[in-house]
């Protein structure tokens, strides 16, 4: 590429220009504007007044926002940690057993990933409804006492939304971990069994170190999915009952477009972005260091 004409030297920039223009105008510029908005008290109609870091302080002091981030933390348990545990057991069991039908299994358990979250939410609303599938099942086995309005009960609404997240993530995590485990040479396990190492020992000494990159990817993807739960909450509970299922992304929407707290909403969006960047960095750093 050296010694080109001036026109030749421009070529790469010409190929880049259209992408960069759209990307700059509709992603980078709005991101910068979000940061700018976040330093203002702005209702979306009148001129905003600068308030310094007050909107960020509110993330820590405003009870509604603090709760929303707390709920996100609970959802991470359901979207990320629980699927990781289930996925590890499933993948370890399946990857070395010569069962037929694994490709079909993979297709089926990955399916939740491609269904629009709004559709997922509509499906689970039917399951959780007062006369829905879950309560019918409980009545059928004589556990009438346990039936309730799962999404309308303060005690169960957040876990009920969380279980949808577990359903959504587990297939993805399992498929990822199975791909990682399939890479481990079987001889390692055979040598370990000869040395008298049981399945638990083999998992810890051989499997886990080998699939660390897959675990990192699984954690990153699912934690981000948990932090970005918007459509699911919007359709299943609308943040209720009360504020028991509000989440940060729902607060962004509600504050900006229902309450007219545009500056605060922008600040929550920026915090969410920083969190996602941070999680990416930390998870990848940890996965790298241990190689």
């Amino acid at each position: 590429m050296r010694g080109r004409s001036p026109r030749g030297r421009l070529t790469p920039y010409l190929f880049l220009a259209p992408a960069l223009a759209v990307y700059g105008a509709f992603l980078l510029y709005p991101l910068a504007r979000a940061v700018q908005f976040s330093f203002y008290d702005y209702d979306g109609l009148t001129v905003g007044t600068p308030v310094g870091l007050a909107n960020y302080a509110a993330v820590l002091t405003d009870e509604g926002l603090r709760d929303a981030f707390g709920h996100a933390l609970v959802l991470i348990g359901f979207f990320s940690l629980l699927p990781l545990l289930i996925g590890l057991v499933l993948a370890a069991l399946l990857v070395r057993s010569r069962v037929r039908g694994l490709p079909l299994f993979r297709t089926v358990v990955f399916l939740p990933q491609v269904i629009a979250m709004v559709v997922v939410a509509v499906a689970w609303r039917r399951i959780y409804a007062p006369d829905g599938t879950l309560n019918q099942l409980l009545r059928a086995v004589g556990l009438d006492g346990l039936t309730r309005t799962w999404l309308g009960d303060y005690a169960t609404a957040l876990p009920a939304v969380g279980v949808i997240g577990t359903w959504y993530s587990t297939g993805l995590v399992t498929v990822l971990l199975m791909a990682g485990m399939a890479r481990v040479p079987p001889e390692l396990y055979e040598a370990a069994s000869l040395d008298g190492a049981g399945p638990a020992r083999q998992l810890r000494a051989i499997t886990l170190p080998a699939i660390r990159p897959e675990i990192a990817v699984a954690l990153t993807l699912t934690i981000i999915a948990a932090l970005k739960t918007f459509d699911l909450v919007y359709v299943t509970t609308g943040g209720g009952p009360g504020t028991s299922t509000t989440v940060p992304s729902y607060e962004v929407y509600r504050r900006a477009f229902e309450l007219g707290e545009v500056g605060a909403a922008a600040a929550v969006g920026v915090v969410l972005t920083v969190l996602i960047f941070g999680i990416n960095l930390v998870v990848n750093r940890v996965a790298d260091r241990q190689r």
Partner: protein
Amino acid sequence: MSAPVLGGARPGAAAGRGAAAGPARGPSRGSAAHRAASYVVLVVFALLALGPVVTVLVAALSPESAAAGDGPRVANFADAWVQGRFGQYMATSALVAVVVVVAAVLLSIMSGYAFGTMEFRGREVLFYLFLLGIMVPAEAVVVPLFFDLRSLGLTNTVWGIALPQVAQSVAFGTYWMRAYFRTTNRSLIEAARLDGAGPHRLLWSVLVPIGRPAITTLVLLVFMWTWNEFLIPLVMAPAGQLRTAPLGLALFQGQYTQGTSLLAAGAVLVALPVVVVYLVLQRHFIRGMLEGAVRE
């Protein structure tokens, strides 16, 4: 160093360093008990994954009231399409998806080509600028986008819904296409150049045709993300004439307490296009969503 590239902007725009899910091969050992346990687990978890899907399908085929007779009622889909206006919503979604897929994929091919095959000043910095965009969630940009595009008169237009999604997809697409162009055979590029092919001919007549698998994966992922997107169309089209399918479904759910069969039929219609494409071309989906970040 490794690229810290994991998806935020578009769900699953990620970057796995893991290999694509290949067929799992284990050693031939494994007792009959182990196999039996594996089959039980296989079936139980497959049923758990399918349960909610089946619930909606059954509801979509049920008559609205017991009086309406029994047997599967396919007419629910026709009712959802016309009375539920899902036909209209799906048409809007299709229009938005076509605009986003065509624009995002073309722009990504061009920018990925520049990053993957050319040397120029600022290449690293510009590339990291694109990587940044993969992680930015829609939640962060949607607030200023609404107010700024409203002053430009772009809210309640297809462009207002599509362009922010083009930008998100271009971030991932640039990254994805660059990875493809970096793996193409250098000697092929040199040979084409010696034959007098300019950069445009080299791209569109040589590299794009042989890069069809990578481009297909990108097309499918962008289509899925766009079809399933909820927040951006919700915010950018408040007037309600331009409702994408997921948005129409969410509002239908909120408005009617009756009509559960119609709602379920609508849900099936909304999910159907992506699910059908997934069932036909699932390798692309699984590969694309799991694989992505190559080590640098």
